[in-house]
């Protein structure tokens, strides 16, 4: 099964060959997905933006060190995920303006009614309660549609560990949203 990471063959060759136009195209094709992945892991717009910018900067500055064992996009995801997890850890040490953060997230989501807002809040809470590893595996699997072997490569863990994190994340959602599901 092909995933998002398998589709840049020709572009990858041109980027590795130093084609600046191909690099620009790569940024335009991937930045939105990178931002969304970063946001889903960090749950904070400011962190997601910083992660996104930093990931691309690191990506291009270390391009000459790229070894073609994996795809460029896998590599970009790896940089993004590591940077996003670092951002979560760094944020834990800061004082968070919770209300402001929630307003930011709410602006990006699609719930409108009071009941949905309550549900929305519940889902946000569950996501926030997931550990960084569980949240990252769930994001890469569910939203980015990656295979467990790709997730394992990105996160430098084994595929079975990735599956365990994923299973636990799913069970957390299931447990916390049971009341809404059974309505």
């Amino acid at each position, binding site marked *: *099964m*092909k995933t*998002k990471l398998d*589709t840049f063959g*020709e*572009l990858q060759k041109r980027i590795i060959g130093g084609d*600046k*136009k191909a*690099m*620009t195209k790569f*940024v*335009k*094709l*991937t*930045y*939105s*997905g990178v*931002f*969304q992945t970063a*946001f*889903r892991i960090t749950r904070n717009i400011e962190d997601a*933006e910083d992660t*996104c*910018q930093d990931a*691309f*900067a690191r*990506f*291009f*500055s270390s391009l000459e060190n790229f070894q073609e064992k994996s795809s460029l996009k896998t590599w970009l995801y790896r940089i993004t995920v590591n940077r996003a997890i670092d951002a979560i850890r760094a944020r834990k040490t800061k004082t968070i303006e919770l209300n402001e953060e929630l307003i930011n997230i709410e602006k*990006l*989501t*699609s*719930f409108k009614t009071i009941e949905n807002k309550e*549900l*929305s809040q519940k*889902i*946000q809470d569950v996501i926030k309660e997931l550990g960084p590893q569980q949240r990252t595996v769930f994001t890469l*699997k*569910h*939203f980015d549609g990656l*295979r*467990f072997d790709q997730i394992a490569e990105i996160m430098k863990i084994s595929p079975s560990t990735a*599956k365990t994190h*994923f*299973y636990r994340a*799913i069970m957390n*959602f*299931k447990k916390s*949203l*049971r009341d*809404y*599901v*059974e309505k």
Partner: protein
Amino acid sequence: MNCESVKKFLPFYYYNDLDKTTTLEIKSHIKNCPDCRKEFNCFKKTIKLVDKEEKIKLPFVYRRALLNKILGTSNLKEAKGIFRTRRVFAFGSGFAAAIFLFFFLFLSIRTTDINLKWQDDSFTYKTEQLEESIADIHKIIAGETIQSAEGHSIDVEINSIYEDIEEITVFLSI
């Protein structure tokens, strides 16, 4: 396979991440076991709720500013000239897929008045409505077949669509 094992496999079954034999075994079990079927339906509903919540749509202005920042902080000097005055949508794919797209988009010019042109290795056309354009792409490609060089019919489906400020890139799997 007993109910306990099936329930453990359900998330992986849902995401099509099991081998063929296990998948068929679970499929058959769910069909015949009301309890596991209920469990699977609950699981699907849970995922649907999370999906609904997680629709992130960034405003156009924000996306443009973000892209500018990324290009500004990376070492891509020629990136400054990438913005065009009108939105341009690009279709990227292999050569065979590009030929296929040409025929279907050529037809679409006549029906939807889309201005199609060849540029670099992509097909691009200009339009003002992003959402309508995505719908057009689906209409054009969904369920179609093309002829291979050997004359066989090949089913074509959209592998993925990348939507950005100016471009939609469609990757096809044949």
